[in-house]
């Protein structure tokens, strides 16, 4: 793995750009007691070819919502998402199908994302038939075996006739990755791809994704709650808190010199075998606030050790700390 590249890539590398996206969900009853949850507030980031961006944050911070917006499962309430410079909002029919081949997802749960009644071969043949009509007959079979070999499932012929329950979690996740690759995507959205797997096989999956990213020049979005694997796999890291992107920059910089108090809290909380635990006297409230369109200020204010009066009034604009490192905080 190369050391952290600081220099920003040229703009032409940008495959996906999310700009000022708000996402809202209506919660509550069908007619009464409705209220609006703002899942994302003004989120902007870019995915570049051959690079990975890690989205880090706790449960409910909006990480998966970002991936689903990019996969066009949801549509943003405000803001825009562009793929290769063109807005994805107007895509319909064939153009949408082509977009979905370009932007593929790998899910968290390899036990749920494969159909238990179908063979591994079926899982890989189906996307080939749908998205790559130029392949016929023997070519499909050859491509299935090439895909399985590519993700480390060899001898491939042994795997095509098996069903998901005959495979371990790590092998299943490799099938899910092969399925995503089958349609030759440009962008891979990986939503906690290793958190359901055994510790000893997690690195194997991350290393496979790393190799694919480099060899196929894929742009990757890596969603995780584990900031250490974010640093391991992704060149850049973005930290989400209650739907706000509070800090963004090269992964090495974010983990070594975090600027936002939430990122600092997150890094301080990561298990560190080099020290012994010392209990803190005062515990901070740990609930993420429920964000609504009426909410004001910085969402972290209730837990923030250096909150100012202005923090309750307005969310600050990003401050540029250089080398692509930006942070949204009033009190730096």
């Amino acid at each position, binding site marked *: 793995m190369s*050391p952290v590249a600081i220099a920003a890539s040229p703009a032409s590398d940008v495959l996906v750009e999310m700009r000022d996206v708000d996402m809202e969900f209506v919660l509550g009853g069908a007619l009464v007691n409705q209220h609006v949850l703002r899942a994302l507030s003004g989120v902007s980031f870019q995915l570049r070819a051959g690079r990975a961006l890690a989205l880090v944050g*706790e449960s409910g911070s909006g990480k998966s919502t970002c991936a689903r917006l990019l996969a066009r499962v949801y549509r943003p309430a405000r803001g825009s998402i562009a793929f290769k410079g063109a807005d994805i909002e107007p895509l319909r029919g064939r153009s949408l199908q082509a977009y979905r081949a370009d932007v593929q997802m790998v899910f968290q749960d390899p036990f749920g994302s494969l159909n238990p009644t179908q063979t591994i071969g079926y899982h890989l043949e189906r996307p080939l038939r749908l998205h790559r009509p130029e392949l016929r007959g023997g070519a499909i079979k050859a491509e299935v075996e090439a895909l399985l070999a590519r993700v480390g499932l060899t001898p491939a012929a042994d795997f095509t006739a098996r069903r998901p329950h005959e495979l371990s979690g*790590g092998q299943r996740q490799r099938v899910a990755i092969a399925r995503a690759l089958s349609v030759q995507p440009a962008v891979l959205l990986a939503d906690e791809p290793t958190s359901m797997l055994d510790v*000893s096989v997690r690195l*194997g999956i991350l290393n496979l994704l790393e190799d694919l990213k480099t060899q196929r020049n894929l742009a990757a979005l890596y969603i995780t709650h584990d*900031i*250490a694997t974010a640093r391991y796999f992704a060149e850049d890291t973005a930290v989400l808190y209650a739907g706000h992107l509070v800090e963004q920059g090269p992964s090495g910089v974010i983990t070594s010199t975090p600027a936002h108090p939430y990122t600092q809290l997150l890094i301080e*909380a990561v298990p560190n075998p080099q020290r012994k*635990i010392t209990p803190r006297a005062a515990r901070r409230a740990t609930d993420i606030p429920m964000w609504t369109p009426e909410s004001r200020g910085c969402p972290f204010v209730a837990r923030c050790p250096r909150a100012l009066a202005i923090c309750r009034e307005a969310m600050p604009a990003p401050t540029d700390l250089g080398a692509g490192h930006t942070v949204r905080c009033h009190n730096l």
Partner: protein
Amino acid sequence: MSSNLMEVRNLTVDYVGENAIARAVNGIDFDIREGEAFGLAGESGCGKSTVAFALARLTRLPGLVTGGSVRFMGEEVLEFERERLRKYRWNEVSFVFQSAMNALNPVIPVSEQISDTIWTHNPKATREEIRARAVAMFELVGIPARRLDDYPHQFSGGMRQRICIAIALCLNPRLIIMDEPTTALDVVVQRDIIEQIVDLKAKLGFSVLFITHALGLLIEFCDRIGIMYAGELVEVAPSSAILDAPQHPYTRALGNSFPPLTGPRQRLEGIAGTPPAPRAMPVGCRFAPRCGQAMPVCSLIAPELKVYPELGSEAACHLLQ
């Protein structure tokens, strides 16, 4: 050296099927000392939870404790009769499970769930005494007493896990077995809970058996750690030795499976292959098929756990002979 609260010798647990027996725990030995935090680490399926259940005499069919001994303060736990067992569970040894979401009854206020526990073991206590104890336990784990009559769904995951800890502590046990107590929680909440356990342990002096696959957390929290692989203990050592001088190749490989947060970014390899299935255990050392340093002898003879006093470690590996 402090005395042993619990001594486990040659503990063997099988899962019995109609046509086959799967040995989940294959004759393991370890001690838990007074006031210490002892950790058990290993991959899913290595038998660490099976050990925890066996120590609390909670093994249920098809699981069966088929051999060995568990001595708690000198008494043989595996021979406890009904009444003695009742006192042993919760008065002396209590449990905190991974799924705080499911450990509490959703249709009963949490106050009743903690009062039930206190009342069951102290039938003579008055209503006021029980309530006072429940309030005290809640305050101990940092939950306001006014929330005592709320239902489990009104609490966050971290608070529910704190309530489980309060229930585990309410009878002043000597040992708390914690099976992945923080795995389902976010990292900041996890840190809060662990710090709280450290704090309570210092105040109340109980011992902890802490089970998780997160080796980094275990090294930070525990005094000594046992590393399990495929139903066997391959190494038992002080936390500092697990970090600085791991003896068994599996301990080293497990340690290299977690990317660090500091230091150079370099490629780590994890562990090739997968753990063996319980019904198809390899002959000899069970880790040999995945071990980069395996020798011919490794696939013939199983190494025994031997003491290496200069390190304070015990390890089972032919490389160390």
